[in-house]
Every structure is written in structure tokens, then in C-alpha cells.
């Protein structure tokens, strides 16, 4: 693997009021790398992802994307955000728009594409996630798994440098989880750089290049999946794995 970090995060801190939620997080993500972030509820995983594209304003620390500062006060946030795809637990599709329009909106407004180019691109993206025939369906007419795949297509359409997934399957019925994970596997095969928060440990083990264990706003352990799953060092990691694998 070449050592060209896509994301470089150092000493990232975030407080909500007097509560410090991120306590100096460091993370470097290489091009094509898949990093899975584990941690119990409230450990700061979502806050961490949301700081990366500054949906949440970090209190201090620095983040760079391909060498460009995200945290600089004069950073061009719109440009940077187009390069950071984000997928939310609750999909956050626009309910008043069709699947196609959910995707074309940012293509037209953020990238300035023509209507025709945007629609072509959107149809292409929908086909990639296996929903070509749902272009004109509204989100309410789609299953949760289909909605999440549209949301992934929406983020991918902007051709981001990195994709952030915040528990993409947590809101789904168990039988729909597979279809979404399948899309993420496909992205992995295409060497998409990804940071994924998930509680799907089987998937994490299979798909991650590296696993990060977060606890109370700090990274307490990290390493390749085999090492982390078979020989966890930190007590919190052991506890977490025990809880989630039910052993």
C-alpha cells in the first residue's frame, strides 16, 4: 500500500459545553484503506465522523484531506465536503424528492452539472447499487435497505475521496442488512477509502484493513482485525467484543 494519506487527523478534540466528547484523537487513513470504528454507545464515534466534514465544529486539532486543511478557518468547506461522502444511520433521504432527484440535487447545486448530465450520472449510480428501476420512487416507497442504498448512491455520485459510514445498517431490519453491506463490499473491491462505524462485527472482521476501538472519546486500541478480534489487549475492547458477540 502506498503511503499517501487521504485523511490525516491529529489531536482532535470536541467538547459539548463542559463535556469533552473527543479527547485528542489521532488517525491517519491511507488511500484505499478500510477503517472500521468500534465503540460502545456514547463513546464519540458519530461526533468523530461529523467533525471530519465539520458538520460538527471541532474544538481543536487538525484534519487534512489529501493534504488540504479541513480545519483551517479559511478552508473551502463546500469543496471539501463534496470530497467526503457521508452515510447516516437514518439515511436522511429527502422525502419530497424521488430517488433520482435525491441524487441529482447536489450534482446540480454543488457540482453545477446540467440537468441531463446529473440525471445520467444519478441513473448510473442507482444501477451500481442495484436500484436502477427505482429511479422515480419516493423514499416512502422504498424499503429501509433500498433507502440506504440510495443514500450511498447519493454520496458516491459526487465522486468523493473518502466515504464515512455512521452505523449504516443499525436502523435496518436484519434481513435487509445484507444488501447494504454488499454495496460496501463492492466499494471495497474498488478501493474506495472508507471509515465505517458499525456494530456488525462479522462484517468488520471480514472487510476492515484496520480496526479502531474507541472508548470515552479516545482510541484505546487499534490493529488488523485478526489481532483485535483474537487477541484484544485493552480491557474495554475485550468487554466490548464479549458484549457484542454474546460470548
Amino acid at each position: 500500500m502506498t503511503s499517501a494519506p487521504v485523511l490525516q487527523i491529529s489531536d482532535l478534540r470536541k467538547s459539548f459545553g463542559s463535556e469533552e466528547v473527543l479527547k485528542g484523537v489521532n488517525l491517519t487513513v491511507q488511500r484505499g484503506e478500510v477503517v472500521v470504528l468500534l465503540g460502545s454507545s456514547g463513546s464519540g464515534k458519530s461526533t468523530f465522523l461529523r467533525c471530519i466534514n465539520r458538520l460538527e465544529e471541532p474544538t481543536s486539532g487538525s484534519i487534512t484531506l489529501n493534504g488540504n486543511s479541513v480545519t483551517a478557518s479559511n478552508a473551502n468547506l463546500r469543496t471539501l465536503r463534496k470530497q467526503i461522502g457521508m452515510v447516516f444511520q437514518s439515511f436522511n433521504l429527502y422525502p419530497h424528492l424521488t430517488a433520482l432527484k435525491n441524487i441529482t440535487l447536489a450534482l446540480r447545486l454543488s457540482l453545477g452539472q446540467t440537468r441531463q448530465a446529473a440525471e445520467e450520472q444519478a441513473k448510473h449510480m442507482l444501477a451500481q447499487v442495484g436500484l436502477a428501476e427505482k429511479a422515480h420512487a419516493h423514499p416512502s416507497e422504498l424499503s429501509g435497505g433500498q433507502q440506504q442504498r440510495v443514500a450511498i448512491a447519493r454520496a458516491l455520485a459526487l465522486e468523493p475521496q473518502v466515504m464515512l459510514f455512521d452505523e449504516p445498517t443499525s436502523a435496518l431490519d436484519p434481513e435487509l442488512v445484507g444488501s447494504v453491506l454488499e454495496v460496501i463490499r463492492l466499494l471495497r473491491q474498488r478501493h474506495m477509502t472508507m471509515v465505517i462505524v458499525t456494530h456488525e462485527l462479522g462484517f468488520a472482521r471480514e472487510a476492515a484493513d484496520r480496526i479502531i476501538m474507541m472508548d470515552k472519546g479516545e482510541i484505546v486500541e487499534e490493529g488488523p482485525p485478526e489481532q483485535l478480534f483474537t487477541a484484544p489487549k485493552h480491557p474495554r475492547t475485550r468487554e466490548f467484543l464479549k458484549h457484542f458477540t454474546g460470548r
Partner: protein
Amino acid sequence: MFLENFFDINAIIYTYPLLLDGFLLTVKLVAVIVPAGIALGTILALIYALGGWFTKAGFILYVDTFRSLPPLVLLVFIFYGLPFLGIQLGSFASAVLALVLNGSSYYAEIVRAGIVAIPKGQWDAGRATGLTRFQTIVYIVLPQAVRNVVGPLLGNTLELTKATSICSVVALPEFLRTAQIAQSHVYNPTPLVFVALVYLILLWPLARLVSRLERGIATH
């Protein structure tokens, strides 16, 4: 005997041209005030949603002020009071100003409530894909917000339409005013009864629609 007094068809035939002029002026008032009120109200709600605490405070001051002032008091002040400050507005302009100030304050509050009820995730999705806050609110948040408050918006439109009848106090020859003039011509309340009936027949369907929409939202 009763009918002759309260509904003498000849009185209507005799005063018909006058009443028609009044009716058309009321339509004209509504056609100006309602779109202007909705536009101003929406702009104010957008400013509220996009602005900082200072603009939010300004919004609250505006909305509270013009929702507290009875529209009749506002109109009388504008028409009879402002000239003392050197601002002289005609009766039509005064009527439009008073009712746009009043109507927009209600529309603004309705649209604002609609906007803040939209889940934060919708803003996140817009901003995460590189949209500005303004684009996010215009293309994503506002369309959903308006859809959710169609009932209250129509309800306020109904109120505003009825409120145009207060413009008779500044001698604006709208529907009610022409009915009063007509009455004095024919010495008979028939024109007033006629105006009331026209209001009832034209606005009843709107009132029904408002009720149905509000019930629809309640059961949603």
C-alpha cells in the same frame, strides 16, 4: 314581509353595479395581500432559520408585535395616525400595509414552526453534499416544511381574506363598504344580507378544506 325587508331582490338589482365594484376591490385586495403576506412571511422565516440570535430576536419582536396589534387598530393608526408623522398613505395603500404586516406575522410564525420541525438530518444531508445553508433550506427544508403546514397557511389565508372587510373604516369602497352605501340608497338591509351570503358561499368551501387538512395532519 320578512323577505321583503331582508331580501328585496329589487334592492340588489338596483345597487348591483356598486356591489360588483366593491366585490372586485375586495378580490383585488386579497390578490395583493395574500401573496405579499406569504412572501414576506416566508422571507422572515428564512431569515430566522439562517440568522444568529440577533435576527432571531428581531423576528420574535416582529411576529409578536403584529400578532398582538388588532388589524383594525393597525389600519386606523396607519391611515389616521401616520399623517401626523408626515407619512400620508391612501386608503388602499394603508389597507394593504396594515393587512400585510398582520398577515405576514402569522404566515412567518407558521412557516418558522414548519421549518424547525424538519429533522436535523435533512440539514446534515444537504450540507454534507456541499450545499450552502441557503440552498439546503430552499431546496430541502422549506418544501417539506410548507407541505406540513398547508392547513394553518390556508387557515390564515381565510382569516386574512375576511379581515379585508375592516378596510371599510378607511372609506375604501370594498365589498362591505359598498354594501353600506347601497343600503343607504335603498333604505333596506338587503345589500348587507347579500354581501354576507356571498362571503359565506365563497369562503365556506375554504373553511371546510382547512378543517379537513387540519384533521388530516392530526391523524397523520
